[in-house]
């Protein structure tokens, strides 16, 4: 389908980039990205992916907007308090860009629904806050061979990696199992600087755009860490995929999805 005049203007700063061009913009419009978690990471990622003209964006979250979310979850406004996060996020995305079809999933991810949730999407973005969900999403994406952007934020720090199943290492290659309940502090317990979600969530959106358009080098095989207090980015090279990994080695011991026990604070995506 040719671009409308409005689209030519809306996406002109993309189209003028020789790495993206009209071809890349068409790929974005045809792409489907699923964002799991409409919070600190998912909010900025969703804003940029909608603005970029990613044609279909799925957003999954089982939470409602709370006043304490607004310090960092920039897709929601004060008027959205009490509203389902997926609805509030969808309204903002549609307002930014009517080209985008938004699918909302007001639900927790679990072993029962995740394979079905991810199956129609080209790229998955993990914006969840808890380890059971992060391991579940990793394992599901490895099993379904879906590319995944994984990220975490806490206090003044953040990190992310891109997982290309069958090619690069996965989350479980780095961490064998979730930490026990309460062993590692969460954002709710430890706090997080609001702009951290903006930094790391935007980098996740960047990886999604690069994956879709085939531009540049993805963060596969690396963990990128960011320390805001030192104002330092550090790229850690990871060992190759699968060496002893329970889920992504060629002889995996985990072949079924696991619902780990939820960490202490309320069950949020």
């Amino acid at each position, binding site marked *: 389908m040719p671009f409308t005049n409005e689209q030519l203007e809306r996406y002109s700063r993309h189209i003028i980039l020789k790495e993206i061009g009209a071809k890349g913009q068409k790929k974005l419009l045809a792409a489907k990205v699923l964002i799991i978690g409409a919070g600190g990471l*998912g909010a900025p990622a969703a804003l940029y992916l909608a603005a970029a003209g990613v044609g279909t964006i799925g957003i999954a*979250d089982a939470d409602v907007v709370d006043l304490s979310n607004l310090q960092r979850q920039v897709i929601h406004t004060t008027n959205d308090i009490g509203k389902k996060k997926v609805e509030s996020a969808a309204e903002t995305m549609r307002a930014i860009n009517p080209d985008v079809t938004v699918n909302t999933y007001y639900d927790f991810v679990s072993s029962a629904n995740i394979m079905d949730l991810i199956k129609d999407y080209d790229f998955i973005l993990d914006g969840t806050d808890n380890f059971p969900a992060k391991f579940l999403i990793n394992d599901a994406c490895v099993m379904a061979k879906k590319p995944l952007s994984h990220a975490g934020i806490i206090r003044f720090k953040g990190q992310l990696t891109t997982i290309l199943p069958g090619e690069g290492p996965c989350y479980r290659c780095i961490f064998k199992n979730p930490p026990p309940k309460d062993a590692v502090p969460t954002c709710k317990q430890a706090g997080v600087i609001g702009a951290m979600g903006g930094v790391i969530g935007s980098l996740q959106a960047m990886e999604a755009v690069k994956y879709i358009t085939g531009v540049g080098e993805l963060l596969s095989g690396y963990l990128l860490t960011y320390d805001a207090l030192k104002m330092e980015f550090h790229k850690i090279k990871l*060992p190759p995929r699968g060496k002893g990994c329970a889920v992504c080695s060629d002889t995996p011991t985990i072949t079924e999805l696991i619902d780990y026990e939820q960490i202490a604070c309320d069950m949020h995506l």
Partner: protein
Amino acid sequence: MKITVAGEKKEVADGLTVAALIELENVETPQYVTVSVNEEFIDSGAFETYVLSEGDEVEFLYFMGGGAQ
């Protein structure tokens, strides 16, 4: 000897083990940290016995939640 920890060059005592470096560096939640030496993960059971060598590049990888909520 000189080693590199999280990208930073450091002078440490010869014969330093991974476990001793974890203590020296005040690593947060040391029982859940993943350690790589020269781009290979070290089994956590081997932290006490793994002796670092001149020029080793050590990285600490931490659990980080955050995101939604």
